[in-house]
């Protein structure tokens, strides 16, 4: 079997498996070989679960033989290493959890494994999902398969790079301020951030609990829709999950967008937008118009404020959530004669610079004398960001624009300037502040690097944004962007 098959839609692979033309063991072996060949140059995986994967593939082939397979059965996938996997090391990209092995199964991991999907491994990420380049991993940076001198985006950079390079058919990421959509954009794949509460966070290592959401990354919209259908839904273990019924997301992909109103916010096209990004996105919008959608100029005046708001709210929640890493119950411990020194040394050594920075910013924003001016003010502005979107969705069905203001930037370029790194999320984090859904779909290349078109929808508007993304993908004809891999030993 050739490796070329690894860039086919997994929905096709499922059909081939159902007809016994290929087996899950074949596809899993080919994927593992590809990981072995390419990943030394990409660094997408923190852990490859080869033995378990092959055992699951055998089980999947049995499921096909016994006619109890579904679209995900036997399909190789990857999980961002922030999602707990029972008995499989979960580091969250941090030295402080370097040897942590979860004693319970994360809800989404359980659902995917029960559906028969084959876990290839756990992917690299910015430590505790804090970052936009995967350079803040506590272990090593991930490189963009399109250009290894560039970042894959982040924080789910390992997941996006793995899918882009054919080292997994799909992956899960998490999106707190753009961490699924931005790396999807920079790696030329499709990434969806569902509505807050659509997917259970049980077993997700918490960063900013009012913003975090798990979602799928794949190479085409129908594949993303298929994965969402499996992971979405109410979970008694996560009381923030919504009770709304889970629709058949794939059935909603009709290719039809005639009469749909697409809002184009002027704030998402600032003068500083990279010209190649602006051109690709404008062309994408023009394609949607030619399919019969109406483009409507709108304004989201709180866009700039949302960024400031995010960098108060997220660090404040993170400061609280990360208090649990104290070297007592799990994770790294630096021995000391007294317990306070034990805490100080464990956290000094276990956390990287960006995590410390955000914990301290959070502590500042929540401390006496500053709480009202920073944290409470940020929550009030957050309400205005939500109103921005509510008002917009009175006028339009979806909102579209660039996912990221730039294509993939160079490794190291923004590492010493936290603020410039934060700006990478300017167009994605407002959706997290408002709890709405968004998807990034490839809309071409600029300077040989992928550009993402972001489509935002109201709460529980996944069906609509996926329909738009799918219609665009079909018309654009490059529904799978394959990076010109110029590295790795020959197959």
């Amino acid at each position, binding site marked *: 079997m050739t490796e070329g098959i690894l860039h086919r839609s997994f929905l096709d692979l499922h059909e081939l498996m159902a007809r016994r033309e290929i087996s899950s063991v074949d596809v899993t072996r080919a994927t593992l070989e590809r990981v072995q060949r390419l990943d030394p140059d990409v660094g997408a995986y923190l852990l490859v679960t080869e033995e378990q994967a092959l055992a699951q593939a055998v089980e999947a082939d049995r499921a096909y033989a016994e006619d109890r397979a579904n679209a995900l059965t036997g399909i190789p996938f990857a999980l961002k290493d922030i999602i707990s996997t029972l008995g499989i090391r979960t580091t969250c990209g941090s030295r402080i959890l370097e*040897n*942590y*092995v979860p*004693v319970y199964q994360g809800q989404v991991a359980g659902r995917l494994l029960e559906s028969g999907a084959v876990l290839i491994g756990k992917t690299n990420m910015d430590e505790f999902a804090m970052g936009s380049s995967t350079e803040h991993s506590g272990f090593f940076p991930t490189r963009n398969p399109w250009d290894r001198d560039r970042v894959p985006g982040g924080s789910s950079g390992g997941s996006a790079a793995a899918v882009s390079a054919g080292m997994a058919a799909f992956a899960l990421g998490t999106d707190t301020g753009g961490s699924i959509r931005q790396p999807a954009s920079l790696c030329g794949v499709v990434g969806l951030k569902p509505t*807050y*509460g659509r997917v259970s966070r049980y077993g997700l290592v918490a960063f900013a609990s*009012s*913003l975090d959401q798990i979602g799928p990354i794949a190479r085409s919209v129908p594949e993303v829709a298929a994965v969402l259908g499996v992971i979405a839904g109410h979970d*008694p273990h996560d*009381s*923030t999950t*919504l009770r709304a019924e889970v629709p058949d997301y794939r059935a909603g992909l009709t290719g039809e967008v005639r009469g749909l109103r697409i809002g184009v916010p002027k704030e998402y096209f600032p003068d500083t937008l990279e010209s190649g990004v602006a051109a690709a996105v404008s062309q994408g919008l023009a394609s949607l118009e030619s399919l019969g959608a109406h483009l409507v100029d709108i304004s989201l005046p709180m866009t*700039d*404020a949302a960024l*400031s*708001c995010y*960098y*108060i709210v997220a660090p404040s929640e993170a*400061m609280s959530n990360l208090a649990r890493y104290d*070297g*007592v*119950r*799990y*994770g*790294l*411990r630096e021995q*000391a*004669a*007294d*317990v*306070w*020194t*034990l*805490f*100080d040394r464990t*956290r*000094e050594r276990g*956390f990287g*610079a960006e995590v410390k*920075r955000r*914990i*301290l*910013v959070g*502590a*500042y924003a929540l*401390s006496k004398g500053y709480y009202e*001016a*920073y944290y409470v*003010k*940020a*929550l*009030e*502005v957050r*309400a*205005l960001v*939500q109103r921005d979107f509510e008002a917009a969705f009175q006028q339009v069905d979806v909102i579209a624009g660039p996912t990221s203001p730039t294509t993939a930037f160079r490794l190291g370029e923004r590492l010493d300037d*936290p*603020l410039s790194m934060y700006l990478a999320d300017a167009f994605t984090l407002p959706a997290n502040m*408002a*709890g709405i859904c968004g998807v990034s779909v490839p809309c071409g290349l600029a300077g040989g690097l992928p550009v993402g078109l972001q489509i935002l929808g109201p709460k529980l508007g996944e069906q609509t944004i996926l329909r738009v993304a799918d219609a665009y993908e079909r018309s654009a004809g490059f529904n799978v962007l394959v990076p010109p891999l110029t590295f790795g030993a020959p197959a």
Partner: protein
Amino acid sequence: MSVSREVVERLAEMTRIGLAHAEAEALGRDIEAILAHVSALQEIDTAAVEGAPGAGSDAPLREDVVAASLPVADVLANAPQQADGFFVVPAVFGE
């Protein structure tokens, strides 16, 4: 606004992160830049907002019923140090 080394050290003490002096100074400059940027929030009129909002998701309370919890051995499996079913830490109180 200036974030002095003393302020950073106080924040680090509250969040139990040991910091070297040099690290405290660099972090102080970073935090200063971040706070200067987010201070734009102060200019925004939020008089129309009542109450502090969340992400807008309903979070109904569940029934308070007894359910199985994780076995003690599992819970202790990741502990850096344990004995007799307990986590072990250095003495918290002096003699």
